[in-house]
């Protein structure tokens, strides 16, 4: 059975994004292949202005759920209703390597239906705020991982979406950019943008309105579940490590999905 999608829509209870009874399995088209069920009836809802953290162990289906909510992956069953414009920041930067940063904005901006002035304004605003303005003429494949991730995030933000779906958006960020990211996210939420974010950082719980856990194919509320948060968060005291690394400027990297201290000396990428 194919999943159904309704977009755009307005919800009677204010939800701007809702997925119901989503099922998804991965398998081979060969009859001898193994089928792996990932989601077995997941429900998810997002209302304007809230920031929701999505946690879960590796392979639990967090990214699959997000891709289905965005619409780039079809569900086997279930439905998704979207009530507004969507910005999606995938885990891996999905950009065109041989285009410059400015050209990347032109291309994706034209996809969003923005005119040239709006593209330029969004590009300059986000480049300044996320501190990649000096790399606008650099090609994507000449950027460091952190700067590439900044562009990846900025592309998701450039059209001021109503719904923002972020899959570990700060991978490779330095501490300052990580803080800038949260400033932007909190500003957007204050303006009514609904934000869902796959996160591993336990310290972020204070910034999140809700936390949901993807486990055994379904989504459950884990806002007050200390065990689940402890289990899926990065090591305790992470923020202290970033601050220490930042002040030392030693380029320390850490757990996947974590912000990093400033780029190391040996990297010749921008």
């Amino acid at each position: 059975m194919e999943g159904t999608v309704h977009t755009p829509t307005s919800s009677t209870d204010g939800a701007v994004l809702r997925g119901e009874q989503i099922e998804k399995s991965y398998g081979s088209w060969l009859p001898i292949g193994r089928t792996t069920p990932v989601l077995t009836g997941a429900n998810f809802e997002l209302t304007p202005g809230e920031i929701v953290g999505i946690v879960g162990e590796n392979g639990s289906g967090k990214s699959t759920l997000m891709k289905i909510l965005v619409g780039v992956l079809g569900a086997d069953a279930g439905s998704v209703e979207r009530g507004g414009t969507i910005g999606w920041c995938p885990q891996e930067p999905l950009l065109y390597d041989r285009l410059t940063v400015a050209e990347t904005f032109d291309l994706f901006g034209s996809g969003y239906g923005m005119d040239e002035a709006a593209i330029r304004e969004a590009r300059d605003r986000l480049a300044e705020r996320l501190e990649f303005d000096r790399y606008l003429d650099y090609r994507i494949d000449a950027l460091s991982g952190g700067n590439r991730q900044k562009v990846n995030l900025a592309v998701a933000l450039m059209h001021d979406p109503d719904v923002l779906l972020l899959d570990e958006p700060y991978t490779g960020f330095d501490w300052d950019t990580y803080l800038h990211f949260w400033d932007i996210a909190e500003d957007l939420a204050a303006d009514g943008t609904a934000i869902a974010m796959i996160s591993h950082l336990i310290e972020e719980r204070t910034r999140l309105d809700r936390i949901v856990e993807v486990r055994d194919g379904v989504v459950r509320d884990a806002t007050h579940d200390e065990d689940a948060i402890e289990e899926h968060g990065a090591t305790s005291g992470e923020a202290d490590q970033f601050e220490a690394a930042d002040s030392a400027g030693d380029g320390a990297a850490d757990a996947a999905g974590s912000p990093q201290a400033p780029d190391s000396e040996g990297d010749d990428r921008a």
Partner: protein
Amino acid sequence: MPPAVRRHPTARAMTVRRLAAGVRLNVLTFVRTPLNVVLAVALPIVVIEGWGRSMAGLPETPTMEAIPLTLGRLLGAILGVAIVAGLLGLTQMISAREADRRLVQTGYEPRTLLATRLLALSGVTVAVAAVNFLVLAATTSPEAPVLTFAFLALAGIVYAFLGALVGAVLPRLFEGSLVVVFLAMMDAFLSGDSPLAADVPDFVTYFPLYHPKELLRAAMFEGTVATGDLAFVAGYVLVLLAAVTAVFGATMQVDGRWSA
């Protein structure tokens, strides 16, 4: 003074803008890939002379005449264009498949995105054909140079679209490259009047290069247009276009475009 009102572009204007931006950026992507440029420039010289001399060097038999060097060079030019255009078509479809899906999610119609790819690909193919034609014209004397160039470009476009189709169906660079190169070499050999391929079955006439080769031969040696072959090639291009559009559209299907 009232605040400036931002006008939303019409759907048609938006499509035109996306097409223009897409074609420009696709061409830039090609130019910024040095291997593409090297292939486009170096391969014609190697293939036209190499393939031409090897075909002309095949032995004459009691029932078959040897291939003249000029015809060998012509066949080399077709092969050179076909291989480069086919590989370019293939890589265009494979290299950014995931980024394409993201772009489609933003609102780019798959058909518009594909159109930007194929337009850029056709432009680059014409440039590749021009290089091949210059090498060919330097070593032979075509009766109708403009027609010879045009049909060389047409042969390239056939293979460019074929490469794009292979890339859409088989999105793996190594396997796809093998398919395109093997197909082009077999096609050029079987379609190419080789005495070693004298008893080929009739279905060779449906091979992608068979009719372009007939077109080229008529233009180069007789200065004429083989209209039947031209109609066949035009139909071939349309069928390939329909097939690649259908496959690309299916692979790029997303249901989460942002709502206006």
